């Protein structure tokens, strides 16, 4: 049994408002082991922590129970406090009487009663706590960035800048991501390529950075500081180190009618291609689904014209194994599919386009060389309707679309409208919106310029239906302010489509054992205080994989993630989580059941000799847990029939003691 101090926090009125803290501390004083009790306004404050430290010293406490907010909030704080008082940090238990008590219960009587029970459970548990010491593991001083968009690029550059090697894995043949497809950027209207491509070149030239383009992460094992990653480098049938990117092969390739992904299918590319002029790495890639040589062995033109001899039709997918200390996820976003949005006639008319397609249409390197021509007949559109919130902010029950706000649409739509009016003043531009959201530096000013200086017609209301009729698009919409139905004959309709996480994110999350929200955005370790870390140690989040973001936000998060990675990689050793499984060898019968359920492969078996009562030795197969690999989930503890496997910090006896205390 411990000598326990009980510290009840008022949390101002957050707890004290619904829980009689005095009554709680009084009720807990007779619990077994309790030798000191008090309550205080803010236990987490320095003054509060000092109370704990003093009490530990004065009363020789061996265990601490803090009745306060969630352990997810301040467990770490109070563990540090305990350490400062000379106590093992794991001799602290928190009774969550705020989030799970005072904040959810209304009346003082039941709140207080529950707080007392939660306190008793924590006391019962701490009575069985044992001092724990974290194990140490080395740190591999190399980072992996998954995704080569602006987020990944920025993260990689910052990490490399600090002197650590970084690998970028990008599924596309080039890095650059979505930003490379953009024309201008809000609110400054500078050209996206002009600010992005120098960074891409920096990446290419940085000797700390390796780019695995046209590659995917195949398998991730290990844990923080010691990830073991297999990267699949897909065969591009071009020797990357030899190809000069001259483009001769592309020019001569007879397969000309392959939809060009970079321009979102609005024009064509060849079977061998370089996505765009400033691609990094600037090497050609053969599309195996389109190349005749690869499909039926007939052609071989590119190989003939390549003076460098870089073409290699026999190339195979290559698997690279590398160890990393940290992994940054920067898998970005995609516009959602418009298949379910028949009302906008996206699939019926070429002249209903998404905003990203609009970017390509106005981009000088795009399919129309920057001239605003409508895709169907390459005529200049005179009436353009922009529709916002297509698939964003949908009702929770809606069968299509997303509940969340995609965040970037208001601003880019304002940008598009403004640019159209600027270049083609004869064009009428309507923007249909639910709300216009412009929080951000110089954002609202930008939007107001679109309305006030450029005469963009903003109409609060929804577009009900778009119907192609002849060469016009009949747009039926409501004007909520005027309270009337509108019928607009438009030449071009641009949809501000909701964005969603890239499809590769979910399998990746599974590999990383990182958690995701219901929309497949990666969950951060703490929404406010740890926004760039995943709850899985050693995994960091950069860019839109964590939530919709514009470029400045993405870049700042990318740098933040980089700084977290650097903070990790500068360490030589990591202290592990001491709350891990361990097998009682005297009870283990070596049946392998626990190893079968361990997600980390942390359990192995050895033959060990045990002294018998008659002084002979008996060899038995027993389980051993690798403390550096075990993450402490406890799956093995339940799989183990005999209870030989137990979890430190969450021992069966401790959980049973909590159950007993609660049910008493």
């Amino acid at each position, binding site marked *: 049994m411990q000598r326990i101090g009980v510290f009840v926090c008022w949390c101002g009125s957050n707890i004290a408002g619904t829980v009689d803290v005095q009554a709680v501390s009084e009720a807990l004083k007779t619990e077994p082991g309790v030798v000191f009790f008090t309550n205080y306004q803010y236990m987490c404050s320095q003054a509060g922590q000092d109370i704990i430290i003093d009490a530990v010293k004065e009363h020789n406490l061996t265990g601490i129970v803090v009745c306060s907010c969630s352990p997810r909030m301040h467990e770490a704080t109070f563990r540090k406090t305990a350490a400062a008082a000379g106590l093992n940090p794991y001799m602290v238990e928190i009774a969550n009487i705020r989030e799970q008590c005072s904040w959810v219960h209304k009346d003082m009587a039941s709140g207080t009663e529950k707080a007392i029970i939660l306190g008793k459970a924590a006391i019962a548990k701490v009575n069985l706590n044992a001092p724990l010491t974290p194990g140490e593991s080395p740190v591999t001083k190399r980072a992996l960035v998954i995704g080569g968009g602006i987020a990944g690029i920025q993260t990689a550059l910052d990490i490399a800048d600090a002197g650590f090697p970084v690998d970028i894995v990008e599924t596309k043949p080039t890095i650059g991501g979505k930003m490379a497809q953009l024309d201008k950027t809000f609110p400054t209207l500078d050209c996206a390529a002009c600010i992005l491509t120098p960074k891409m070149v920096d990446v290419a030239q940085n000797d700390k950075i390796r780019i695995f383009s046209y590659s995917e992460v195949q398998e991730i094992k290990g844990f923080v500081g010691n990830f073991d990653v297999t990267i699949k480098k897909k065969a591009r049938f071009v020797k990357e180190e030899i190809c000069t990117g001259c483009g001769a092969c592309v020019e001569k390739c007879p397969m000309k009618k392959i939809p060009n992904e970079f321009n979102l299918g609005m024009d064509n590319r060849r079977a061998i291609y370089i996505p765009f002029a400033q691609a990094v790495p600037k090497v050609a890639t053969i599309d195996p689904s389109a190349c005749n040589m690869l499909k039926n062995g007939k052609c071989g033109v590119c190989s003939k014209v390549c003076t460098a001899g870089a073409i290699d039709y026999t190339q195979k997918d290559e698997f690279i194994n590398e160890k990393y200390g940290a992994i940054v996820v920067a898998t970005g976003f995609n516009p959602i599919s418009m298949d379910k949005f028949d009302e906008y006639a996206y699939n019926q008319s070429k002249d209903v386009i998404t905003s990203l397609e609009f970017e390509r249409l106005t981009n000088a390197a795009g399919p129309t060389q920057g001239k605003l021509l409508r895709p169907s007949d390459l005529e200049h559109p005179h009436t353009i309707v922009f529709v916002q919130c297509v698939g964003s902010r949908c009702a929770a029950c809606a069968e299509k679309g997303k509940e969340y706000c995609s965040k970037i649409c208001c601003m880019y739509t304002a940008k598009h409208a403004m640019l159209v009016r600027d270049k083609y003043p004869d064009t009428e531009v309507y923007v249909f919106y639910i709300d216009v959201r412009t929080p951000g530096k110089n954002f609202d000013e930008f939007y107001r310029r679109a309305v006030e200086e450029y005469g963009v017609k903003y109409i609060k209301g929804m577009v009900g239906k778009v119907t192609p009729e002849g060469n016009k698009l009949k747009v039926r919409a409501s004007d909520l302010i005027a309270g009337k139905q509108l019928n607009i004959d438009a030449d071009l309709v641009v949809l501000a489509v909701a964005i969603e996480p890239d499809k590769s994110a979910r399998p990746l999350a599974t590999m990383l054992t990182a958690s995701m929200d219901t929309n497949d955005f990666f969950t951060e370790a703490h929404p406010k205080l740890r926004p760039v870390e995943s709850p899985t140690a050693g995994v960091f989040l950069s860019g839109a994989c964590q939530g919709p973001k514009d470029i400045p936000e993405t870049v700042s998060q990318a740098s933040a993630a980089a700084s977290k990675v650097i903070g990790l990689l500068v360490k030589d050793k990591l202290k592990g989580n001491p709350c891990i499984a361990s097998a009682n060898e*005297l*009870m*283990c*019968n*070596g*049946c*392998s*059941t626990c190893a*079968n*359920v361990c997600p980390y492969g942390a359990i192995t*078996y050895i033959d060990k000799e045990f002294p018998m009562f008659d002084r002979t030795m*008996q060899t*038995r*197969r027993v389980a051993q847990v690798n403390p550096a690999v075990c993450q402490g989930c406890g799956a093995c503890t339940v*799989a183990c*029939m*005999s*209870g*030989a496997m137990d979890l430190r910090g969450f021992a*069966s*006896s401790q959980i*049973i003691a909590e159950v007993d205390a609660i049910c008493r």
Partner: protein
Amino acid sequence: MQKVNRDVLLEKAAAMLDAGEVQAVLGWGAGEFAYDVTPRVFETSDELRADFVWNDFCGANLSKYLVSKTKKLEGKLLVFLKPCDTYSFNQLLTEHRFEREKVYAVAVPCEGMADVQKLKALAGDGISSIESTDSGFSVTTIYDDAPVEVKGADVLLEKCANCKSRKHVAYDELLGDEGEVLDSNRFDEVERIEAMTSEERFAFWQGELSRCIRCNACRDVCPACTCEKCVFDNPNSGAENKAPTTSFEEQMFHVIRAFHVAGRCTDCGECSRVCPQNIPLHLLNRKFIKDINTFYGEYQAGAEEGSRAPLVDYTLEDLEAEDVFKKEAE
């Protein structure tokens, strides 16, 4: 009833013992009466010839003894296994409970084993002799000079009446002919109970479990129960308990016992066979087997050595706990 004669087994074992190919033989030894057969380790062929039996009362599953007996021997141990015993044999191997190299497994076809209690219920007490016939038994008691004829099928052990397989799934040598995996009706009784109302089920099990005297025979005979220390014997486990003090303790013991062997139980039926109180313990195990089959696809523990037990496995599309009862209703 048994088609393979005792002497076939005896000569096999004696020959191997005499040749030094095995160090000992694990078989069944003669008792006081015809029916009280005791598992026994024979070390010489003379012992075998004197006491070895193979008759219709060799219900005991010898596979669990391999765990302790192989440890004591330097050489090989010959063991006789009935079809159902071979499933336990595989399951024990899967769980690394003994070394395969130390065992010479001789598979014996089985026509089903007799339940002495059922026999006595039909033939009466005071049995002085039992003769096996082709179709059953000829029983003489001290109360009657004329023998009573009893049909073998009427006195089968529960596990034999609902035999799941006459096929041996593991052995080094097979004596006699191989049998088939059977379509048994072993889940009928489980279904009958499932069809009851919750109240009826509760009453049924209270009636059964209240007879429990916690003698641990079911656990100690079970080939799947080979823990170094059982949770129910371990004062630190939080579940230690020596007596069925309250109805809760009875339920706790039997639920957890069955849960611990869920997915590992081969349905060898030993638990019910040995229960001095005739509690149908196999029904608890079979409920788990049936559920596993329904929820996660057919699985027979011990059918294959090294197979992954359902409770240490999963699929992404597994049934949700809340859908369990919907599935059962189907």
